[in-house]
């Protein structure tokens, strides 16, 4: 059940307990217990809403920042990653293989705020060797969801 439950709510976190129970063919209480267990085990880390901010009047700028760092003795990359992810404006931090070490995404209201973050906070950290900032110009697909206009059902209304 766990695998199917995760697959369903990964796509739609808003399906209620009752519907989940019906769809998976188990009791509501089992779904509730399983969700609680998944949360406790840290497998479910949160329930988010996927928003296409471009369709609102609210200004948002997102940047991907490649960061090269010197790993620290005994700590590897974890210490410096922690220093970075503790900034509330940082959305994601990934350790990456290849030409640089950490990929940091950050969301702010303006370009200036992002450049301030990079120059004042990120670059000044001791272990940070260099950064390269890429601004997101357009979001086509996010979290597996295509953000352009919703597809209409083009099937004939009735077919054999």
């Amino acid at each position, binding site marked *: 059940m766990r695998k*199917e439950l995760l*697959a*369903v709510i990964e796509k*739609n976190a808003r*399906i209620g307990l009752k*519907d989940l129970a*019906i*769809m*998976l*063919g188990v009791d509501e209480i089992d779904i509730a217990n399983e969700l609680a267990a998944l949360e406790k085990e840290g497998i479910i880390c949160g329930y988010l809403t996927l928003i296409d901010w471009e369709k609102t009047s609210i200004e948002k700028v997102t940047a991907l920042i490649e960061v090269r760092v010197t790993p620290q003795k005994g700590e590897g990359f974890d210490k410096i990653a922690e220093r970075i992810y503790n900034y509330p404006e940082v959305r994601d931090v990934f350790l990456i293989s290849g030409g640089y070490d950490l990929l940091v995404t950050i969301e702010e209201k303006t370009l200036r705020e992002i450049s301030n973050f990079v120059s004042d906070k990120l670059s000044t950290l001791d272990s940070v060797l260099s950064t390269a900032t890429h601004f997101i110009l357009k979001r086509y697909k996010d979290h597996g969801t295509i953000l352009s206009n919703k597809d209409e*059902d083009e*099937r*004939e*209304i*009735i*077919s*054999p």
Partner: protein
Amino acid sequence: MTKKLSEKILNIKPSGIRKFFDIVNEIEGVISLGVGEPDFDTPWHIRDEGIYALEKGRTFYTSNSGLKELRYEISNYIKRTQGINYNPEQEIIVTIGGSEAIDIGFRILINDGDEIIIPQPSYVSYEPCAELAGAKPVIINLKAENEFRLKPEELINAITPRTKLLVLPFPNNPTGAVMEKEDLEKIAKIIIDNDIYVMSDEIYSELSYKDKHISIASLPGMKERTILINGFSKTYAMTGWRLGYACGPEEIISQMIKIHQYAIMCAPTTSQYAAVKALRDGAEDVEMMKQAYNQRRKFLLNAFKEMNIECFEPYGAFYVFPSIKEFGMSSEEFAQRLLEEEKVAAIPGNAFGDSGEGYLRISYAYSLDNLKTAMERLKNFVAKLRREKEKINQFKKSI
């Protein structure tokens, strides 16, 4: 013109679905539960393969019986899923959907006046295609109390000395019924005893929610008398690609190729290349779609239960077939009022044969949100009908 068109064609009645379709198109804001095709798009890697075939200029005819690569993949697939060996060189033909295979399969078997046994409710094409082939359709009216399975005694009663062929449409459109191994074994025995052929239409084979689908052709003594029909439409959400196939003994398939070669030439080449990809790498997509269908199936069954509407549990395809007999009106009347008053389109069961009277075909090839809204509307409608009935009963009592 003074010369009359073909009597044979003029005598064939138009599809009940078509009739309903014309009404639906005039009404706005309709939520449809009426389609018989997947709501998923063809998985991207399969579409991509079609695009690639076009880019590479693969725009020629294939051999009449279909692309060799594809016939080998079909052969592997049937071996893998049913354990039956079909020689891809002589025993498989690629057709324009399962529908073409049904049509030409009938035509190569029938001499004028031969009988084809057709269990109903079932897909709308069997009966007219049988008539076109010059056969006399003999209908078996399947029963809800048997979960719309074909029962041995029903078959025995339908067999005459002129019986040539039994159509076996499971998993079934429109009922969602399936035949399990024990059911098939009993049928197979009768078939062999009476020396008749079987056309097993297994287009929904991958959409079996209880046990894995079993083909009657896999039973002893059945391969040599069975035309197994399947296709890509339902399994891989490829309806518009128009691609199906038939497997059977060489003497049957070679005759089918004859008609196919004169009438069709070959199935669309682009689709055939895409289908090779589907059979090689599509299993995961099928599993994903099947899981989604199964969740919706359970959702609908529960919704009917809550509405107190009688509905047997279907284990196949993507339809449920609830009974509307308690409301005392015909399927068509019910479907039309549901459409006009609540703007939900579902297909009256009698479109699939007289034994579908009193039922409604509801498709769950729709998103869960869509189904939810539709069930809300249906609930209102049912409540209204029950109130009406109550009023009439009270009125009757008072006089």
